[in-house]
């Protein structure tokens, strides 16, 4: 599966959906001028907040058949689907979110199937497809089925999106289909439910559970998507930073105290917090906050040679440092306290 070498004149036309969101916009900018790429077209329902740096923006809704016209008119050969979203509030509610995710994907894939110019499809998916349950293996590989299907929200959407993508791959065997299942993104600029969760003054957790979590740095995520777009790597790949952080550990690294609540209370708290628009947090996250999830990324390393530059811990620490999260309990102060106590005790006890 060698990378398709860039021919003499750049000829490829790439369409990126969800380009007005942080990752989509970033990927579009990075693809401009990449070897072999002639045009980059970004699609979204709202205009991008910043410059797309040479990429063209087309205001179109992927839920609308008009997307087929965009694809044929521009002779798009590669579609990067980044428009599966996890945050109901930003989408305008859960119903609208489901429509964007599922109906949007269906329309987009229908358009792709009709377009003869399509050679490659890259889909940004999520490790949420594995669900979260006490019966989970410690690490999910790409071939494993979820032990408990995600029943609602983003996880369920992702499962359905992947289902449609597999269907598309069957019907168009000539198209290279790559799917990347990302763990939770963190980074200096990206906004996800978890970035706002860790910025709460007190981090609510599920009483009696301390889940393992993985994070992936936005730079590493963009790197993988860029390579899937430029090179040929058919298949599904897990993507996450190396190593695990426990939820309590992560909260403490951010200098945040945790507030363990019994799980029914966490749901209620989650509802309230979502309604008050502090954190875009959906109820299905409760299972994740109870049982956690880890994925094995060795396939991406073996087949693509992709190794994340940031481990889970480094990703988190950088997020904390760059976001300037106001630590309630800075590590330095705790250390100073330790020395103080140790000093006092040794003077008292050693005498």
């Amino acid at each position, binding site marked *: 599966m060698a990378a398709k070498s860039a021919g003499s004149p750049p000829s490829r036309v790439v369409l990126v959906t969800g380009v007005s969101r942080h990752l989509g916009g970033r990927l579009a900018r990075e693809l401009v001028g990449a070897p072999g790429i002639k045009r980059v077209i970004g699609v979204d329902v709202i205009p991008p907040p910043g410059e797309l740096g040479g990429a063209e923006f087309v205001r179109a809704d992927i839920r609308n058949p008009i997307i087929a016209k965009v694809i044929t008119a521009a002779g798009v050969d590669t579609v990067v689907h980044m428009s599966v979203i996890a945050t109901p509030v930003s989408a305008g509610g859960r119903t609208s979110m489901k429509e964007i995710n599922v109906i949007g994907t269906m329309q987009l894939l229908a358009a792709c199937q009709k377009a003869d110019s399509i050679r490659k499809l890259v889909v940004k998916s999520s490790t949420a497809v594995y669900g979260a349950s*006490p*019966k*989970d*293996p*410690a*690490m999910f*590989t790409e071939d*494993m089925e979820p032990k408990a299907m995600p029943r609602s929200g983003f996880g369920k959407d992702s499962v359905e999106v992947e289902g449609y993508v597999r269907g598309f791959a069957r019907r168009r065997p000539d198209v290279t289909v790559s799917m990347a299942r990302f763990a939770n993104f963190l980074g200096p600029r990206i906004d996800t439910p978890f970035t706002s969760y860790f910025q709460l003054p007190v981090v609510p957790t*599920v*009483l*009696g*559970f*301390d889940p*393992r979590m993985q994070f992936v740095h936005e730079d590493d995520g963009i790197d993988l998507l860029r390579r899937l777009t430029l090179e040929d790597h058919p298949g599904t790949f897990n993507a996450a930073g190396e*190593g*695990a*952080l*426990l939820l*309590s*550990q*992560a*909260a*403490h*690294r951010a*200098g945040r105290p945790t507030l363990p609540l019994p799980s029914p209370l966490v749901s209620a708290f989650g509802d309230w917090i979502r309604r008050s628009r502090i954190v875009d947090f959906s109820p299905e996250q409760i299972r994740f906050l109870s*049982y*956690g999830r*880890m994925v094995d990324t060795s396939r991406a390393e073996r087949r693509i040679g992709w190794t994340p530059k940031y481990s889970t811990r480094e990703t988190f620490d950088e997020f904390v440092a760059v976001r300037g999260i106001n630590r309630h*309990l800075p*590590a330095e102060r*705790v*250390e100073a*306290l*330790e020395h103080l*106590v*140790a000093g006092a*005790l*040794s003077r008292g*006890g*050693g005498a």
Partner: protein
Amino acid sequence: MTEARIIPIDGERPRRPVKKAVAPQASAAPAAAAPPVQAAASAAAEPAGKPSPALDIKPRKRPVKRPVAAPASAEAAPADRNADDARVDEALHEVLGGHPDGMDWDTRVARTLDFLRRRVTGDFEVDDFGFDPELTDRVLLAAVRPLYSKWFRVETRGLENIPDSAGALLVANHSGTVAIDSVMTQLAIHDHHPAHRNLRMLGANLVFQLPVVGEVARKSGATLACNADAERLLGSGELVGVWPEGFKGIGKPFSDRYKLQRFGRGGFVAAALRARVPIVPCSIVGAEEIYPIIGNVKSLARLLGVPYVPITPTFPLLGPLGLVPLPSKWIIEFGEPIPTDIYPEGAADDPMLVFNLTDQVRETIQHTLYKLLMQRRSVFF
């Protein structure tokens, strides 16, 4: 409690190890203040003052306070040095677990504070399975050390059958209503095996469903009993412990004690074959008697969704007091490893071989149990 009376073959045996386990700690507590380094130093010079600052590291600050105790250990010196050192080491280890007396107070305080600081700031490592080695050693195992040495007076045999580094699968009998036997086995290997290995246990999914229990299990190195996890652990050279009887083993009535139940479906053998690691049979005697099950409230168990609700002679009769386990005397014997790398590649897919190996492991453990029961003089000594 009846088969214990069968034949008191070697009546002499059981008492000694009890003393060995308890006596040195009591008398070694003062000696522990003077670690091996100091014993050498005080043999030459009188321990008054501070002879050489190089030797005077943190662990001693008390020689002045205990001038009587220190020379005493120095006098016992050259001949007994090795035995003494070993005992001091053992005592030290014991002391680290929980005794406020013994090791230098400053060091203990410093270590504890350092530990607490890193907990508060999240500055520690867990592996992919959620195992937290430091928490396990300093808190979780420390909490059960007294139970191990004082209450059950666990005696271990055949620790040399556990490899020092490579992967191995330890298979043991399960008993005792509450799965304390797995904790004791983990502690036995962690504290007394020369390589101080961490036993990575495989647990039922009910364990990980329960709040607190699941969290503690993961942090102490356990993971779900499934082939994926077993092979991942064995493949990375870990020592994995499995109790294939599961709830059938710990929840069986007292009248069935020491009768091995069905050994699952032999999944553990397949995992060992695929990872090509030896199987170490492990027999635990004593755990059966800690909470003798004389009844099982099946209807309540169904209602609660748990495998059994035990009635023991003391529970629920005595309320919370019934939760105190009976102080039976334990023996954990690790048997000779059964190699799996002598079988060809793909042997794990041969059900006949898997069944045969499962039976072989089961029989080995059952016979060792009978042997140990014959040697045991009584349930409590």
